[in-house]
Structure formats: C-alpha cells, structure tokens
C-alpha cells in the first residue's frame, strides 16, 4: 500500500539536492541508493538500482516528494507535453493526493514543462534483463 517516504530518506534527499558540489552529491546519492532505497518501498524485493531520478533544478526536491510518493520518475521522464497539458496533470495529481503547496504550483508546472516539453528528444527507455541474452537500450 501507499507508504510515506522515510524520515531518513527525506533527510538524505535534502542533503543530496542541497549540495552544489556534483561529486559530493553523487557520493551522497550512491550512499542513498545503497542504504535507503526509499523509492523502492513498495517493491521490497527490488534491487536498489531500478529507479531513475528527476532532473536537477530548483524544484527537483519538491517534485520528488510530490510525485514520486506514488510512482517513479520514469512516468514523468517519458512525457513530452505542453505547458497546458502539464498544468492539467499537476492539478489532477494534486486532486489525487500529490502534496503540492499552493505557492509551489506554478513553479512545479514550470519545472515539468521546461524539462519535458514536446521539443525535447524522445526518452530512451531501458530494457529488463533478458535471461537468454544481454539487454539493449531500445530506440
């Protein structure tokens, strides 16, 4: 069932996103992956390296807490939508339980519609491991 992000996960996430030094952030993130895969709480048996992340930016942390409680980042990464369409999505998801402070709504829509607009290159999904051969990145 729906579970809240652990306090530890939130603290580490804040730590990761607040750092400007890329190397330090990457180390912290890798520690987060190995220690506290908070995004994988619903899939206990899953290895830690199954998730993707939202892109860096001023709303990354808030988008992560608002959106990734219920689904993972790939659902967002694959969209290529206009600002109008993102506005509808944010409002729908807020109605469905995404916690978005009213003061953050427009910034969240900005973040999503600038990162995932129709002019961006198509998302390249990963493959699941093929027991009969090596996986490939699909086109």
């Amino acid at each position, binding site marked *: 069932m729906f579970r809240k992000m652990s306090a530890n996960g939130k603290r580490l996430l804040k730590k990761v996103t607040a750092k400007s030094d890329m190397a330090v952030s990457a180390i912290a993130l890798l520690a987060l992956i190995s220690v506290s895969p908070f995004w994988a709480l619903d899939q206990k048996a899953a290895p830690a390296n199954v998730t993707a992340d939202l892109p860096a930016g001023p709303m990354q942390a808030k988008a992560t807490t608002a959106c990734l409680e219920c689904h993972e980042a790939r659902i967002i990464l694959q969209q290529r939508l206009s600002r109008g369409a993102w506005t509808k999505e944010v409002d729908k998801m807020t109605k469905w*339980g995404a916690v978005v402070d009213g003061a953050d709504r427009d910034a969240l829509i900005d973040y999503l519609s600038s990162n995932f607009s129709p002019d961006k290159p198509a998302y390249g999904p990963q493959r*699941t491991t093929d027991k009969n051969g090596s996986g490939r990145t699909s*086109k």
Partner: protein
Amino acid sequence: MAGAAPSMLTWALPQGQTVSVPGEDGMILRSFRFVDLESPVEYFNSWLTPVPHFFVRNHMHEPSELDASGWRLSLGGEVEKPLTLSLAELSKMETHSIVNTLECAGNGRSLQRPQVPGIQWGKGAVGTARFSGPRLRDALRRAGVKPTGKHVMFRGLDEVPGKVPPFIRSIPIEKALDADTLIATHMNGSPLTRHHGFPARALVPGWIGAASCKWLAEIKVLDAEFVGNFMSPGYRFPNQPVKPGDAVKPEDTHPLTALSVKSVISGPSDDATLKAGKVVVHGAAWAGEADIVKVEISADGGATWDIAKLGHDQAHYAWRLWSYDWKPAKAGDYTIQSRATDSQGRTQPATPVWNPSGYLYNAIDQVNVHVS
C-alpha cells in the same frame, strides 16, 4: 533551468544497463513502480506470445499479498443468490480456452502528435495468449442475474496510492454473458503470473486490455454502467473526429470497447541495413472482435500495395501473423508499410486518428530500411 540536464542517477546508471524484473525478459521498461512493460516488436514472431515476453500494464501497485488459499471472488449486486468462490471452487467449474490478442487501449500513444499524457507506449503493448478458466456467464447464472442487471463491474486487488480512484470498470451484460468471456486463471497453459493477475482475471476477448481486470476480487452486477474515473473520463473516445490538439467535452465521448484493425511490422527492424536480394517482411495483424481479411505491403510510399501471406494459425480474437517476400529492385532507402483490412470492412488509416488520451492508435505501420 533551461534544459533537461542529465541527472546524477543517469550518470550512475548508463541507459544501456538493464533492470531485473524476474520473469520478464528483454522487455522495454516504461515504468518499474508501478510495473509497465512493453514487448519489443521483434518478439511478434510467434502466434502465442510467451508470458515473459507479454506486455504488462498496471494502473497502480500490484497486490502486496496474493494468497491463493485465502483468495475469494465475490459475486453480488443485481443477482438472486450472491456467491463467494474460492480458487478450488473455480477450478471445479467447466474450463474454456480462448486465444486472444490483448492490447492496451493506449498502445502507440507515443506516436500521436501532438503528444498526449499517459504511458508512452511504442508499438508493443499487445500480445496474444491462450487464456483459460470458467466462463463468466456460468458464474453469473449460478448467482442468477436479475432482469435489472445491465452491466457487470470488476474490481481487482490493485493497491491504490494516495487518493487515486480505484481501478474499477464495467462491461455491458451482453458481453459478460458471451460464451467467450472468462474468469481466466491460466495463460498459455500455466497459472497466471503475478504480473498478469494471479490468481484470476477477467478476460473480455477482443476488447481493450483495461476491460480484462486483473487480480479479480469482486464481480458486481449493476443496473447501469459503473460510474468512476476509469469509465469516465478515462477510456473514452470522441464520438466525432477531433482536430489534433482540440479538447473534447465528456458528453461527446463514448466508452472504449472493441479494438481497432491494426498491423505491425516486426521485421525488418526500423533503420535496418539489408543486403540486396529477397527480404522477408513479417509481422502481426489483429482486429478485436473482427477477423483479419488481408494485409497489404507497400515499399513505394503507398503508391502500390501487394498482398502479404497470412499465417496458418488463427482464432476468432487472435492476431494473424503475416509475411511478404520483398525483392527490392535496387539499392537505396525504402519505407516499407503494412496495412490491414478486417471482416467489418475497416482498413488502417494513413494518418492516426488523434484523440486527447491517445487511444486506439492504428495508423498504417512503417519501417525505414536501407538496401545496400
């Protein structure tokens, strides 16, 4: 920020790295949490799709606990005698098998322009399997449907995150009482896997995949269509053609039911470089409740079409595999197209029929190849 900077996790996890999802081999990962997996089109080379190659579409989280011995299916609503069935009781009922092509209504959504929200399926949210289990109508007759019963609702055990509406849909009583509509417990001869709805799912043949509710827990006979998000505004189609990008009022839509006529080229692959000589173009074609009558192939931009050979294996709701021996006259770049026509006289359109949710994409398929 201005652009989509690569995330640190992308840096840590190269795109080529695969993700382990036990029982799901080489599938395109649309989402891990919740699980949405697409078949690469090159898998469409066998009439029955092996379960590890069969697409998975989940709207929300899979049930965290599935206990076959404790599982019960309730059947109530507009019936004379409400029932509760265990898996053992279901297995004692007469079993029926249907080879069915199951396709997500959103298959091909990523090809719509302008783009629309939702899982960005390519061409592979479709597969064909032999589903087995008791007929839904046998269970309904045991309970005794009242004259007021007009629709049949399915509720699964999906775990709902946040305040997301539960995944509940209904089908008209006529389809529920059809001899081919099942409470399926098996897929290709084996018990359903977790991803495909263990221990039982509805199987509504020829209809959009969303009609075939997984992890079935409740069947309820209603006096009207179920009212809920996944009946409206979800899974509805405009009554009239829509200009791409235009909004559509809910009252100008109807619920999706049967699938469209469609073909997909499974080989050669897009952007392939081929040697001169004979090239076998092959793929699959399906039409929901209708039968495939012909598949045509063009290698000259649609100016001329030749008939492809249909495969021997066939069943009423199942796709036909097809193949075509193509002999390119000279080296160069070619666009190969496939176009299916069904027993209802429907033919794949040259341009997609756009709609706000990107349902039932069925434009003529094509791949670009280079002949050296």
